[in-house]
């Protein structure tokens, strides 16, 4: 275990050309530097996502340039844009088809809460009603720097995930679900309107 090696000794060894590491560190180092996002966009946030992938902002510097057109090859779902209720079951289905470990970035006001369209009858009020979200990016749309920041936050999260022990990563725990129920098209709304196992909003109590 890395924690048991003295940091001074480790850097001294490194200076002599001996690199001491742990399986967990090596594994997470590999994972965090080759995050393959799923290639899809929903609205104007997708344009910022495309700009992030292009040469000026260049997400390849962080190992995320390989946008996969298949969910089976993707590690990261960037929900970039307004999720309409008609599209929401497809998003959940794509998430279910991604192999573990998988992560979700909710990009922009719409994907977080419905944004400026949240009072509309046809816009989902946040993708976190159906699938777990790792990083939220506020903005309308967020700038490419914000997406890169979220990407780095995700890398930090991956780096901190444990392979063993009681606090090990969710994807290594067989009791944790990796697929979530796909909502059905109902007569008036999606059914259910939110998945209570996933959607845990802050409890707000106010004066009535």
């Amino acid at each position: 275990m890395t924690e048991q090696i003295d940091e001074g000794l480790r850097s001294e060894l490194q200076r002599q050309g001996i690199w001491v590491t742990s399986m967990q560190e090596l594994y997470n180092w590999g994972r965090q530097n080759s995050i393959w996002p799923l290639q899809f966009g929903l609205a104007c946030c997708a344009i910022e996502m495309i700009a992030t992938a292009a040469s000026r902002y260049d997400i390849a510097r962080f190992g995320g340039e390989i946008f996969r057109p298949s969910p089976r090859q993707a590690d990261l779902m960037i929900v970039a844009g307004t999720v309409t209720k008609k599209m929401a079951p497809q998003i959940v289905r794509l998430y279910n088809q991604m192999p573990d470990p998988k992560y979700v970035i909710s990009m922009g006001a719409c994907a977080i809460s419905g944004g400026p369209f949240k009072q509309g009858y046809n816009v989902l009020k946040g993708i976190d009603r159906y699938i777990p979200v790792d990083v939220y990016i506020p903005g309308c749309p967020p700038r490419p720097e914000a997406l890169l920041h979220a990407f780095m936050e995700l890398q930090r999260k991956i780096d901190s995930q444990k392979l063993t022990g009681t606090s090990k990563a969710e994807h290594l725990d067989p009791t944790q679900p990796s697929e979530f129920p796909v909502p059905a098209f109902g007569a008036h709304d999606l059914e259910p309107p939110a998945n209570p196992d996933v959607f845990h909003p802050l409890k707000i109590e106010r004066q009535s």
Partner: protein
Amino acid sequence: MAAEPQILSSSDGAADPPASLLAMESLEEIKARAEAAVPGAKIDIVPNPGPANQPSLLIDNGHAAAIARFLRDDPALRLDFCSNATGVDWLERTAKKTVKVKKMIDGVEKDVDEATEEKIPGYLEAVYHLYSIALKHGPVIIRMRTADRAEGTRLPSLTPVYRSAEFQEREIFDLYGIRLDGHPDLRRILMWDEFKDYPMRKDYREPDDYEFEPTPHDEVLEKARKHYSPRPQLDGAENITPRNEAETR
């Protein structure tokens, strides 16, 4: 050597533009000619007071396709382009009118304002904006009205005349619930097939998913209040309690 700039003027030898390019005939003339061309057709002119001032032709449902075909094919009109088709929902309303009535008061005849109320039943409308690409004029706006807002929401489709109306008529059906007879493929276009409501109708109520509104105001506040648990002794930020960390793991 630079070429001489060409100055276009209407006074030089170019042919005069056709008369129809200068001005389209008035709506009254169109109405008269359409009624003459389509036997039995009944057309009303709906005035539209206000800055826009775009009066429209209210055509009767039985002869709608024939009238549209006349507007499209008539050589002086040639309204070959249906740029827009949409719906309008008119709820039942009462129109108040004041009429001057002569009355005998204390043996003297006087003009008295008498308020009368007229109940106008609700109906749905389909509105089409027609232009002529060939003659560069327009728009001519035509409307059709349903019998009511409940059972008789049927209108003839104009897609057989204007192919460009196909998707927009599907949108009218999807959002207003007007069944357009004669449409080749009348399905919902924006909402899913299982959806039962017509969201653009004025009496539509959207599903209530206002349970989590951190900063509600105005209409959203009213809707979010239904989800508030009463706790009158507290207010402000202390009431926002972070969810239990153990619960999320």
